[in-house]
């Protein structure tokens, strides 16, 4: 695949910017529109753009692990965040647990944040797995 040098250069700068932006969206989902799902999509866009510009193999080197591996990790984190109230306080599944003192930048941290992080990883993993599989077989 032929790519322009402009895209190639831009993608190297865009990758970190998009990743930071995706994390911003993830955290913003706390009180405002955003959250794990859309954050995960943005993060996967960052990698997909990188793979368009530099080829799939370069992106795979960058990722180290296969994106499919993010699925069980994300699911496990989300599942734990639901289980935490059951195990720790004997409250019903998925009860929101919140810290009393707000953390700087983030605001108050609760189990919902970890659920969102789980969603973020799962969405990222699924999208990348799908796109990589399609572009490998194409």
């Amino acid at each position, binding site marked *: 695949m032929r790519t322009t040098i402009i895209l190639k250069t831009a993608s190297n700068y865009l990758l970190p910017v998009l990743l930071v932006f995706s994390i911003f969206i993830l955290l913003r989902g706390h009180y405002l529109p955003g959250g794990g799902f859309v954050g995960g999509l943005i993060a996967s866009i960052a990698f997909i753009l990188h793979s368009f510009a530099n080829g799939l193999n370069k992106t795979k080197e960058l990722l180290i692990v296969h994106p*499919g*591996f993010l*699925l*069980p990790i994300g*699911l*496990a984190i989300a*599942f734990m965040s639901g*289980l935490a*109230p*059951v195990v720790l306080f*004997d*409250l*019903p*599944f*998925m*009860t*929101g647990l919140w810290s009393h003192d707000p953390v700087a930048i983030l605001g108050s941290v609760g189990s919902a944040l970890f659920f969102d992080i789980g969603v973020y990883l799962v969405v990222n993993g699924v999208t990348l797995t799908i796109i990589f599989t399609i572009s490998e077989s194409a």
Partner: protein
Amino acid sequence: MTQQLILYPLFLQMAISIILMFGWSRIGFQKVFSVFGSILSVGLAVWLFSYIWTNGTQTIQAGNWEAPFGITFVADMLSVTLVLLTAISGLAVSIFSGGSVLKDRLRFGYFPILHFLLLGLNGAFLTGDIFNLYVWFEIIIISSFVLITIGGEKAQLEGAVKYFTLNILASMIFLTAIAVLYGITGSLNMADLAQQVALVENRGLVQITALLFLIGFGIKAGVFPLYFWLPASYHTPPFAVSAIFGGLLTKVGVYALIRVFTLIFVNDPFLNNIILIIAILTLISGGIGALVQNNMRKVFSYLIICHIGYMIAGIGMFTEMAIAGAVFYLVHDIIVKTNLFMVSGVVYRIKGTNSIRDLGGIYANWPRVSLLLFIPLFSLVGIPPLSGFWPKINLIKAGFAGGSYITVGAIIFASFITLVIIAKLWAEVFWKEGKELPLRSNFGYFSKMTTAKRLQFIVPVTFLSIVSLYIGFGAEHIQELSARIADELVNSQGYIDAVLKPKN
């Protein structure tokens, strides 16, 4: 801790799936762990069952939001019975999968998806919120899409397209029905809906909504005239997948029908009559469809449809005895249908084909295996004292009590036709002189398998046969159980109180 017990089956299946996904490419590990997890889930289901049996209906509010607003999980006798049956069939299919599903399929996450399917089934049985029910249905159908297409053979994809189209349609109708219901009452909690719907003035609107639910669940359950996707797709995937589909997927539709039409839309002769008519047509058309098929799995697919009719008839008659019959049939049917598809899997491995015309001579070569396969086949027919016999007595009695003689006629007709089909099948497949079939190269014939591999086929069939025999010979227990379930379903105030009036 015990209040959370309701959710433990869900936690367990979720945890099994996640752990299996960590071992994505290690098939050996997945086989062992899936069986191990399934054994645990049977234990857990037995625990839950006995807890509910002694303590009555239990509820829990996920997220700790109060009842009409939060998502309620309710475990009444019907739910926990189905959770137990799911666990039992799940265990059998998990063992069977290890032996019968090809490595190429297992490599693509067969086992994690199988456990996601079981998670969805458990969730659908335990939830007390109609929108949440929809979400579990989605989990079930997404998992089933993967299972039905995994492997990607041409016939499989063809079946999957039909399966996919009609199930998506059913989901959309179901979702529309929920939207209308929410528009009328402003609630999604099933117990709350039961109270709200009774107060609605505009009965016509309620009936239309009920019909939407009937169509949506009817497609999933495979009732007349919405069943055509079922025989078109169930014979294509691997046998283990057919087994779990045949045993449990249509039954979720039946469960949803039972739940909705005993709790929310009740005391409506118009609806009950429609359900009865559908039941009669399902019994007749399914039975006749099965008569003309040549592929063993297609015969069983049509028999699934035919026998769904019994359960729907039970809902339609809507007396305590009829519902007890329907529930008893449900218990019997889940075990037997799962087993039948595994039986066809064993036959396929012995002879390399599933075409009834070509099969034959199995009894002469494999007498002991044949006798084992005899049990599920004739349990289905319901030759007393095998398990299919008892629920029909309930249904026929209820039919006579209610004066619906056409229903009784249809039930007897369907039983008779099942007898004819199974007798023909037995004669053709097991007794007839076997033809010399051309040997297939690279095919794992039963005769060439090691004993350990054979056990993976025989153990699950034996296990479910024993359960069927228990349902037949211990019919008194199951009858007591179904009578209790029917009592809970007909007097739904207990369910409503359990959800809306927490004990503390």
